[in-house]
């Protein structure tokens, strides 16, 4: 007697996710880490001319900015080619010919991408911590050398100032929000790829949404706040505000690097909104994919 078919199987989803991850490994997507490492080393060497506050500021900005760019690019490029590649290789038909619901297939694919993004951001964070620690040790040694003959309490003040300028707890939520934003984009790109005709189309639309999403807040403010615009511009602004995600909300890292702390409530709300976006885009993607003629 054949085993009873389970409608929703985490094991099947996990199998698809790990296969997707393996596929991405084989595509050598992690080579970008070399560029990231070179960026860190290059910027560290270049920054010797600046004072220590500027050095740490620039190093953090370059590192976290690069993390943001790389995770976004990875999420868009890797997700955009998943469905077209599976269709081209006929893998999709083999999978869906088995009793695998389309939702599980999409969820497995997204999970694979999210795992890949998680590994990437962890590796980049590790490189960032090493670079920042190295720079901190160098500056501490320089401060010790330059403070010869200084009273011990003043020397301790100087050393504490250097340490405070390097590692702050706020960096952790900042990095998590970068990941949340990348996850949102992976889900959004998956949704676009369910109706897109090609990978290029998916990438182009995703990039366009990225920039529109950063301006969404401006459109929303104009729509809700301005009474002078005509009906057509108002409809256009309303569509932008309602259809596109507000990506500016996920740019916490700029302010964190600037030395501002982030409250846990604010971080949790922003992360929850990102999670909600990811789930909704996945559901909409399923909506399109469920009735798609393959």
């Amino acid at each position, binding site marked *: 007697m054949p085993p009873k078919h389970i409608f929703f199987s985490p094991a099947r989803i996990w199998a698809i996710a790990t296969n997707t991850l393996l596929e991405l490994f084989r595509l050598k997507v992690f080579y970008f880490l070399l560029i990231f490492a070179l960026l860190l080393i290059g910027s560290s060497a270049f920054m010797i001319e600046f004072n220590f506050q500027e050095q740490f*500021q620039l190093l953090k900005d370059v590192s976290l900015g690069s993390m943001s760019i790389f995770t976004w690019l990875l999420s868009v490029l890797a997700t955009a080619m998943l469905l077209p590649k599976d269709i081209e290789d006929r893998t999709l038909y083999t999978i869906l010919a088995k009793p695998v619901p389309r939702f599980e297939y999409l969820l497995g694919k997204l999970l694979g991408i999210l795992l890949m993004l998680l590994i990437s951001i962890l590796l980049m964070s590790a490189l960032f911590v090493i670079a920042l620690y190295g720079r901190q040790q160098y500056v501490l040694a320089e401060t010790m050398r330059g403070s010869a003959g200084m009273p011990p309490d003043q020397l301790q003040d100087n050393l504490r100032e250097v340490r405070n300028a390097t590692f702050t707890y706020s960096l952790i939520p900042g990095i998590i929000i970068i990941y949340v934003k990348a996850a949102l984009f992976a889900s959004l790109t998956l949704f676009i790829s369910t109706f897109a005709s090609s990978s290029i189309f998916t990438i182009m639309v995703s990039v366009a949404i990225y920039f529109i999403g950063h301006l969404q807040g401006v459109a929303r403010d104009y729509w809700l706040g301005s009474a002078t615009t005509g009906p057509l511009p108002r409809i256009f602004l309303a569509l932008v505000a309602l*259809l596109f995600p507000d*990506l500016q909300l996920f740019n916490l890292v700029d302010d964190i690097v600037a030395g501002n702390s982030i409250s846990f409530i604010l971080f949790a709300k922003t992360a929850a909104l990102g999670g909600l976006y990811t789930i909704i885009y996945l559901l909409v993607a399923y909506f399109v994919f469920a009735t798609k003629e393959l």
Partner: protein
Amino acid sequence: MYSPQKNFDLPLPPRPLRERAWFRYARVVAILLLFGAIRLPIEVRLNQEHRAAFFHGAKLNLSLREQIGQLGFLAALGGFRALVADGLWIQAHIDWTRTEWGKMLFLFNNVTALQPRNIMFWEMSSWHMAYNASAAAMQDTTQPRLALRLKHQHEYFLVGEGLLERGIENNPDHYNLYDALGDLLRDKLQDHYGAYVQFGKAAKFPDSPAYEKRFSAYELSYVPGYERQAYDELMRIYRIGDQERLPTLCWRLKLLQEQLNIPASQRITIPDYMIPPQYRPKPGISPPSVQDELYTPYTVPSSKP
């Protein structure tokens, strides 16, 4: 007779509405609009919280587009504001090595507009203008007239002051910029009352260094008409303990005691080594009057001959 070809010619039955492509897409757009309507109040509220937490009312100025170029503005809006600001900061650093002060000010205005919550940018920009550019203005060999060199120097002091004031508007919750403004008012503009106010504001922050309250009291002691208030403030610090009884504090107290005719029983005595070198009695030179000493700010002796 049965003909397969003929069967294909038969009109197909109309597809149900839910299977038609346009209907499917319309349904997706409707879901997205519905989701947008649900998240709209959440996003508005969250956006307000973000602004309250980070920007304190500061927003990206749209006229900035003309200054940093379309690509830079797009990058700034695209979430790479910090990277664009850093790029401009590095450019300003290069211009510093070329002593192009005008271009530096232009770049500082852009950097601070992009990152209004970054204290370091405000502090360093002001320092470059008020300390470096002003010094360069005085050494300008192309300007033979001293009056004009002094005028340019003063203008750079005011530029530095303006940068710090704008920085404080954007960052009222950090002591650093009040401290920097106090330094500038004291050292460059000789506005001792203004410096007293700024150091006093810095001293109110729990994380500010202990010297802020001392600096505030020192500055008040230079302002004619505030001698009693300054004396009370300095005595309050003096009574905290030995760690606060620094040479400058004791010296200012001594001068104020003379000026205010404090009764001998209430006066403090300070050892000779605590008297600043330029105020120590020298053989053959008559000591300056208490007024001269009281209202002449202590200056660090120059290392140059």
